[in-house]
Structure formats: structure tokens, C-alpha cells
């Protein structure tokens, strides 16, 4: 019987399970181009301010030179008090954060409390280190717990850094310039939001892999404000997904009504117990 009450303790040592599979898959292409994974060429940033943490991200997902998703959500839910921005291979960041979120939900149900940010970071670090860089996830974790407001970054090889402000992704150098210039300790909420917005904006302007809208997520003791989008790009997409037209848009030339005659063949009555 499967036990759903325990956090999965992973096996010890490195995990190269998929290396053989990857090699076999590459062989199938016989020297041709293997399909490239969808990467979120990205700008993500985070700032610790007086009352909590502000996370920001752009919303463009690219597949080589084509924009695959214009409204991609890069700020992932981990727990009610922790959110995570992901850069790198889109599938890896999605799955990793999902797995982390599920495990932490089990922990919360068992212990009756919200997880601490450092716990999420340790679980991520363990997992990414075990896969020795094969999971291409660059993550920024931010959250508020009983010990304070925290911001961490975890790289694909499993290295962890804890700093008051961060930027990651292909647009990180541009964003970091804005953050280095504007960051102060104990910023007010509006200033912090504006700083993160400016940082992501710099990434969008200077990097081809980042673009479209800006999402902002504010986490405080009182709760979470996930503003999606915080700022919309001026180049909006006017295509509608539904194409339903008013009757009469196309001119009606003739109308023919044919009533269908229905014959009752069999009738059964089944009483329902509504006690």
C-alpha cells in the first residue's frame, strides 16, 4: 500500500538514470538535429523589502528564434507563503517546482504549518545536485516565514546563494544593473515593486529572449498578491481565441424548416430513492 504521508527521501548518490536513454534517443536521429527543448530565455528578478519579498518575471517563452508562448507564467506556486521564478528549460522548471510544491503540501498537512523557505531550498538543492546539472533549472525562490523574509537562488548544478536581491535568466545582466543601482535595505512596497518592474523592463529591452508582459508577485505575512500582468506590453495581440458570430453576419438567402417526427417506442419509469 503506498504511503502518502511521508516526504519522499531520495536515494543517495548521483543519478544518471536518464543518460543512457538520452544517448539512445540521440542515436535515433542518426546525426541529424535533435529537437531543442523549449527554453524560457528569460528575465526574472527578486527583491527583499521591508515587509516581505517581491518577485518579477517577463512572460516570453522562446523555441530558438520563435516566440512559443507570449503569456507564459514563470512565477510558480510552491506554498501559500513561497513562490518560485524559473529560468532555463521550461519543462524542467515546471516539473521541479510542481514536485517541490506537492512534497511541501504533504509536509504542511502532516505538520499543520507552512513550510520554511530554507526547507524548500534544501529539497531543491538535494534534487538538482543529484542530477548533476542534467536538470536545466535556474530558480529564484522567495517567501516569508516565521523566521523572516528570504530570497534564495538555486542553480542547475545545485549551488545555493542567499542574497537580498537577484536576477536570473538571459536578461539577468541588464536587470542586475538596475537592481545594483536602485536597491536599498528595507524599501517600501511601492518602491520595491517599481524597482523590480524596472529591472524586468531593462531585461526585456536589452535581451531578445525576454519580452511581452511583466508579472509581479508580492509576498508578505498578510498574504500574496500575484499581479499578472503588472505591465502589459504595448505590442498587444488582438487575435481572439473564440470566433463566434452574431446570427445575420452572413446574409441568409433561403430558409427551410423540416420538423422531425418522433415516435415513442418504449417508456420505462425508474423510481429514485431520495431518502
Amino acid at each position, binding site marked *: 500500500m503506498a504511503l502518502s504521508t511521508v516526504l519522499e527521501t531520495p536515494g543517495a548518490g548521483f543519478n544518471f538514470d536518464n543518460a543512457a536513454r538520452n544517448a539512445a534517443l540521440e542515436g535515433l536521429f542518426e546525426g541529424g538535429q535533435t529537437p531543442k527543448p523549449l527554453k524560457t530565455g528569460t528575465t526574472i528578478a527578486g527583491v527583499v523589502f521591508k515587509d516581505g519579498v517581491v518577485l518579477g518575471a517577463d512572460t516570453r517563452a522562446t523555441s530558438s528564434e520563435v516566440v512559443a508562448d507570449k503569456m507564459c507564467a514563470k512565477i510558480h506556486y510552491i506554498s501559500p507563503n513561497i513562490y518560485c521564478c524559473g529560468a532555463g528549460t521550461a519543462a524542467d522548471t515546471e516539473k521541479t517546482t510542481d514536485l517541490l510544491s506537492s512534497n511541501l503540501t504533504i509536509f504542511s498537512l502532516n505538520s499543520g504549518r507552512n513550510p520554511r523557505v530554507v526547507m524548500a531550498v534544501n529539497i531543491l538543492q538535494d534534487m538538482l545536485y543529484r542530477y548533476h546539472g542534467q536538470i536545466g533549472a535556474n530558480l529564484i525562490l522567495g517567501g516569508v516565514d516565521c523566521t523572516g523574509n528570504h530570497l534564495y537562488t538555486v542553480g542547475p*548544478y545545485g549551488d545555493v546563494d542567499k542574497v537580498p536581491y537577484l536576477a536570473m*535568466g538571459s536578461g539577468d545582466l541588464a536587470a542586475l544593473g538596475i537592481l545594483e543601482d536602485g536597491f536599498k535595505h528595507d524599501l517600501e512596497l511601492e518602491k520595491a515593486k517599481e524597482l523590480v518592474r524596472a529591472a524586468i523592463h531593462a531585461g526585456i529591452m536589452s535581451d531578445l529572449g525576454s519580452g511581452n508582459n511583466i508579472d509581479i508577485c508580492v509576498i508578505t505575512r498578510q498574504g500574496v498578491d500575484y499581479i499578472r500582468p503588472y505591465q502589459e506590453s504595448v505590442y498587444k495581440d488582438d487575435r481572439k481565441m473564440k470566433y463566434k458570430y452574431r446570427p445575420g453576419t452572413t446574409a441568409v438567402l433561403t430558409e427551410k424548416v423540416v420538423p422531425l417526427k418522433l415516435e415513442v417506442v418504449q417508456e420505462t419509469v425508474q423510481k429514485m430513492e431520495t431518502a
Partner: protein
Amino acid sequence: MLGEAEPHWLSEEVKTGTTIIAIEFNGGVVLGSDSRVSAGASVVNRVMNKLSPLHDKIYCALSGSAADAQTIAEMVNYQLDVHSMEIGEDPQVRSAANLVRNISYKYKEELSAHLIVAGWDRRAGGQVFATLNGLLTRQPFAVGGSGSSYVYGFVDAEYRKGMSKEDCQQFVVNTLSLAMNRDGSSGGVAYLVSIDEHCTEEKVILGNDLPTFFDQ
């Protein structure tokens, strides 16, 4: 047009191209490190503290691959906790260095990190151990990381036996400053940890407070 949209440093391994140093004095040790973490040409973290506690009076200095070094330090921290509970007293520095050495030697092909272990214990006072590639050797002082190559001459010429704690701290700060000036992969601020029988003191020296030399 875009080709590989992602810059290479995002998928490159993050290294602590580094300068680390540890030196023993009568009654304790002083450890020092720079604070730069690089991924290729990009600096990922300019304020990382590379002096990691293994126990109350035993610290290690990290260099090489950031992930490998951090993981080794965490594993040894855990193993030392268990060990010190089993023996019922504070662990010896040699035990800590041995634990680090065992991991470095066993996984020598897979890991690329060098940790210098230094601390104070009741039996042998202040000790510094180098654990490069799985060896274990006690030395009066040890330097490591990419920046160490530039300061071997300096440390060999300037080291004297019987320095006091303050002399050691000055020696460490001078060495770090010289290495940080010459090595592109070292920089930022200098972190110092001084361990003796009575206390463990952590200090940060900001960039503009570091000693300057002839060309600055």
C-alpha cells in the same frame, strides 16, 4: 537569428574561482576568503561567504565548483554532528579533515572542489589541514583556489613562526588583497574567521577597507 537564445554562462557550472587561506597561531587559527562566485565570465554572486562552519570551532574554506563544495561541507557538517554526539564531546579538527578527505578521495573523479579545514580543539590547539584531491596533510598555513598561485611567493616570504592572532589576521588580509588584485576570478569583499579557545569571531572587510599596495 537568435540561435541559442541562452547565454552560455547559464548552463555552465558555477565555480568559486577563489582565494582561500588558513593559518595557525599559538592557540587558534585564522581563515580568510574572497567573495566572488563566477559562471564563465559572469559574476553570479559578489558577496558569497566561502567560510563554512563544520562545527562550533571548526570551519572550512570552499573553492572549486560551488555546488560540489557546498554539498561536501553540508555532508561533513551532518556527519560531524552525529560523530560529536557519539563521542560526547567536541570533535577533533583532524576528524573533520578526515571526513572531508574521505569524500574528496572516494569521489575524486566526479567532484571538483578543494576544501581547507581549520579549527581549534582541546588536544592539539589550532590546526590547518589541506585536503586537495584526497590527501590529508597538516600545515602551518594553507592557501587554495585560483588566486593562490599569485601569492605563493608572498606567503612563503612573509610567514614567520610564532605570529600573534592580530599578526595572523593582518597577514591573511594582506594575502587576500594581493590575490584579489591579480586574479580575475577573485574579488568582492574579504571574509575573516578567527577561532581560538574562547571564541569564534566572524568579520567582513569591505572592498575599500582592504589594504592597498604600490599600484593603487
